[in-house]
């Protein structure tokens, strides 16, 4: 890891600001794109993640701030054009031209003045890699959504870019198509180790692909860190909900014994690990998959055991989402097998338990 920290970033943005009219849509004090790493920009719609991607890809000029390429500030238009020819972008929409699939994949190479033998070689290779070699002579207008997006991605990878920008490339595809293409892209990214900036609102994509995640909301960076940091220690309720933590319960610290806290929640006491002081209000984050259910009070190490009444049962694939009323609302995600063994039904009373170490506590300001 010490080696990584000494590596110079490919792109750095400082004090980046973008406004549409009088509305400030982006305000980024600093962000770095590290070589051979995947940086995921995540956040809800309208959070500014695509705007940030366009700025970094030098396709949108920010109203303030600067962007540095390997330590050098990007100044004139000639430098922008030169750098764009080292980058590649694939958008959510395939944006293909009205010509053959092969010509679409070759277009960027032609614009970059690559010689024709090399264009032929790379086009052939990447059409093959994306499984669309048989479509090379087909008109791009006659493709399915998945084939079109494969063409768009082959066009980007064929450029062998120094930085690859992917703006929600899987978002518009139906589920089976998305899964197969996503799998291919995961393999190709791991193999090529190309520096990538990925915009997505899908937490699973970010978790699978990213080395580092930047979470945006309302044009600002709310949190950045490794996927583990973001997913296990979100900084606020919005991030927690975004990363799939369904249980966010408000409480108040009533005792702190060397980091082990008692949190009062509507008459119950939940135990957790936190540096928050007595009297502070907090949000308690519990992943639904960390909640276990049983019919008898189990004698495990779990201190947080609550009797709750089932308010709803919802099957979700191989899992069952169980909503409970324990004096506070709590959602548990258990396997269908467990649900059958426990003979769960709405109105039934069960014990819900979770470990003090499995919960994440956020101080509410």
């Amino acid at each position, binding site marked *: 890891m010490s080696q990584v920290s000494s590596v110079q970033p490919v792109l750095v943005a400082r004090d980046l600001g973008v406004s549409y009219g009088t509305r400030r849509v982006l305000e980024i004090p600093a962000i770095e794109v590290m070589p051979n790493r995947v940086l995921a920009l995540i956040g809800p719609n309208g959070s500014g993640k695509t705007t940030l991607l*366009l700025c970094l*890809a030098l*396709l949108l000029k920010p109203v303030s701030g600067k962007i540095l390429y390997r330590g050098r500030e990007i100044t004139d238009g000639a430098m922008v*054009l030169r750098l*764009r*020819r080292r*980058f*590649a*972008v694939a*958008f959510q*929409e395939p*944006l293909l*031209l*009205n010509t053959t699939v092969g010509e679409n994949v070759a*277009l*960027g190479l032609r*614009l*970059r003045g690559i010689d024709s033998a090399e264009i032929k070689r790379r086009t052939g290779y990447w059409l093959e890699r994306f499984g669309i070699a048989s479509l090379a002579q087909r*008109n791009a*207008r*006659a493709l399915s959504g998945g084939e079109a997006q494969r063409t768009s991605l082959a*066009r980007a990878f064929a*450029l062998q870019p120094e930085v690859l*920008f992917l703006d929600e490339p899987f978002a518009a595809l139906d589920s089976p198509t998305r899964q197969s293409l996503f799998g291919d892209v995961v393999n190709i990214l791991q193999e090529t180790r190309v520096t990538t900036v990925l915009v997505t609102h899908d937490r699973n994509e970010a978790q699978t692909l990213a080395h580092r995640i930047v979470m945006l909301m309302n044009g600002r960076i709310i949190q950045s860190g490794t996927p583990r940091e973001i997913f296990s220690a979100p900084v606020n309720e919005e991030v927690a909900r975004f990363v799939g933590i369904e249980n966010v319960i408000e409480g108040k610290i009533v005792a702190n014994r060397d980091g082990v806290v008692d949190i009062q929640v509507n008459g119950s006491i939940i135990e957790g690990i936190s540096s928050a002081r007595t009297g502070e209000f907090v949000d308690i984050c519990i992943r639904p998959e960390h909640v276990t259910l049983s019919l008898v009070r189990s004698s495990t190490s779990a201190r947080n055991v609550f009797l709750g009444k089932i308010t709803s049962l919802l099957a979700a694939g191989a899992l069952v989402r169980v909503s409970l009323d324990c004096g506070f609302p709590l959602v548990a995600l258990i396997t269908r097998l467990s649900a059958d063994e426990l003979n769960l039904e709405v109105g039934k009373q069960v014990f819900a338990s979770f470990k003090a170490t499995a919960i994440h506590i956020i101080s509410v300001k």
Partner: protein
Amino acid sequence: MDLIIDGFKQAFLLLIHGDPRVIQVVWLSLAVSGSATVLSLCIGIPLGSLLGLARFPGRRFIISLINTGMGAPPVVVGLAVTIFLWRNGPLGVLHLLYTPSAMVLAQFIIGLPLVAGFTLATIQQQDPKLRLQILSLGASRFQMVWILLKEARLPLLAAVMAGFGAVISEVGASMMVGGNITGQTQVMTTAIVGETSKGEFAVAIAFSIILMVLVYLVNLILTALQQRSREN
């Protein structure tokens, strides 16, 4: 009834024998309208692209002028050009009035807003992200516009046809700035008006047939292209 049958009979004879006067008039029509269309394209496509892609002060005003120009009556254009080219007018020294050049100028003014307007509409229909995609592939500004126009080739061809169709069938402006001088500035439309007023229906019908066939051919090509683009 005789008048019509007789008219058609004579018209066919004129066409089949290749009457020199008829040929001269058809040739001038094609030359004047063709030149005017080419000029409209040379100015109209860059103008429409600029209005579609760039933002600058006065842009909206120019677009409103173009939209008005697309529906402007040719006879008003004819009047304006006549005033400008009149002996004591601002451009009177050029002595262009009642020459084919004046007709090209008038038809260019009629065709320009059509071509610019069609180009603008075509560019605006394209996904704005397509521009970013093309730039990201490494295109310069000029290359990007060229690729966008190539992408819009079918609707632009429709603009060409519409422009040519409009100027070749226009009569008011050609009449005013050309003067319908036999052998010099007479084109098909002005000839039809002139011959009809003299009661020479056969010649008028002959020109009408040629004009209709031309307009039909233009539409035939357009339809074929639209069908091809739909099949793609």
